[in-house]
């Protein structure tokens, strides 16, 4: 019932998923490098032997890849004036 309110331009023009992918890619790279190259024994000791940066960094890289894949598989479509065709939309 609100469809008449939608104009073809969308506020969702810039895709939040790409921003999230970017954020976690940057964070993931930084943390992975920190974990792999700059982890001191004191860092390991305070987390009872776990290399926190390395594991979280790898997790964030996977997360970034997941957001990027999602955006690629289901890109935002601007709402056309005519009823949209079947198939996945943005969600």
């Amino acid at each position, binding site marked *: 019932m609100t*469809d008449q309110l939608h104009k073809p331009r969308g506020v969702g023009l810039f895709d939040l998923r790409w921003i999230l992918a970017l954020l976690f890619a940057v964070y993931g790279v930084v943390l992975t490098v920190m974990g792999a190259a700059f982890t001191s024994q004191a860092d390991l000791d305070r987390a009872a032997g776990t290399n926190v940066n390395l594991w979280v960094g790898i997790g964030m890289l996977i997360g970034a890849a997941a957001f990027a894949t999602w955006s690629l598989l289901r890109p935002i479509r601007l709402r056309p004036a005519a009823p949209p065709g079947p198939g996945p939309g943005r969600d």
Partner: protein
Amino acid sequence: MNALATASLRLDAGPVDYALLLVYFALVLGIGTLARRSVSSSLDFFLSGRSLPAWVTGLAFISANLGAVEIFGMTANGAQFGIPTVHYYWIGAIPAMVFLGLVMMPFYYGSQVRSVPEFLLRRFGRFAHLVNGISFALAQVLIAGVNLYALATVVNLLLGWPLWVSIVVAAVIVLAYTSLGGLSAAVYNEVMQFFVIVAMLVPITLVGLHKAGGWNGLTHRIMAANTDASEQLHAWPGSNLTGIANATLSVLGIVFGLGFVLSFGYWTTNFAEVQRALAARNMSAARRTPLIGAYPKALIALVIVIPGMLAAVLSPELAAYKASGGTLANGVTYNNAIELLIRDLLPNGMLGVAITGLLAAFMAGMAANVSSFNTVFTYDIWQTYVVRDRPDAYYLRVGRLTTALGCVIAIGTAFIASGYNNIMDYLQTLFSFFNAPLFATFILGMFWKRMTPMAGGVGLIVGTASAVTVDQLNRHGVLHMSGQGPSFVAASAAFVMDIAVSVAVSLRTAPKPDSELVGLVWSLTPRDTLKSTRLAEDYGWYRKPVVLGSGALALAVVLDIIFW
């Protein structure tokens, strides 16, 4: 909370941590600037042009609530009370969010109102509208001040800046992105903040559990350190949380006071959250907003309550504080639980992510308050009562100005908040004052067409007065309750009194004609108008609101049984 400033809690942040923080803020301001391009009307500014997809509004819905109160307050509750804290999620939030999505959202979204007070205007007319509009605007700037103050204490702790500088700088950043991009910027940042918070809480929980020797290690340490360990390790009856010794009454207090009145009142009528659903692109997405939010909300309890419990055994300072029964003055309180874990567990790098997460949570909380304040002030107070019938561009400008005004007032209320020792209890009390009576009025007004405009206004005033009375009686020692019990009882009293008075007044005053209540009252609303015109992407059995809602309830029940 001024004890936060002591050196023992200073986080040892390095250049990497600051770099990660800067990356985040660059993105936040970038989103504000990008979102500005798509703001061309007041509806764009206040409700994102009603165009957001359900997963975005769903995450923003819980993110708007995941601010200072949530992170500090619930980890503090976890440290102090243990597992019973989960009731705030599985008894409190989840059923209320499902109810909002299934029952109430069709009325909100279907009637095309732009705010919760505006719904009251349509249903009850000006008296109830004005009462609620003013009390809501007041409550939002007070709570924004609390968020701002909590944010400033973290900046103060981290950078060593004076508290007032931290408060002003934080307010300027929130102002920058909310006044640029309106609700879109606030909502997009809330979603981003949600993921950063999760990226902070999950590693803390896992590393903390690893360090404590797993779940068994944690429970053994709690049993060794506490005489009431069994209460802390079982969700029911939760006597330590409610402060009600009798098990049956304690369960009643949790289910009726916390679960029904306080949480239903909070989640279904608090515009800061409901606004996120109103920004959804259609009815189907609006109904799914709280339902989608319910799943992460149910699970996030685990990574908030467990870290609280971990902090109380892993941090020697907090363990000593807890062993003393909360009387030891060693510079920490339960409110510091999460900061102690961050300081003790995380290396540089991950530390930066955690600091970013905390700052983001407080900013998002404040942005939610400010962006709902500017909407209610502009539409419900300014446009309705002060300056009417101007072009839309005028109200867009008022909205931007009000955002600035909200931030300035929040700076003032932040200094008020800094004078309180126990902010979390104070906030729970505020919710019982404002949200519980509002919920009673809503529920009665939606299902009883006879309820009159006069009853709407009087009910709200009497309900709030009842909650204030209970609070005052307890404060002055007439009633004897501790823990979070008083706010549960105050909320229940407000609910019962509101209903009783509304019924009594309705029977003596004239109701609105049925024709004016279509779309606002259940029995007068044709069933089809409550359904959405669905788009192709809204089909699929897993997107049906009933399926989503039942799934969320089932998840809460399973989790509750596991932690029984």
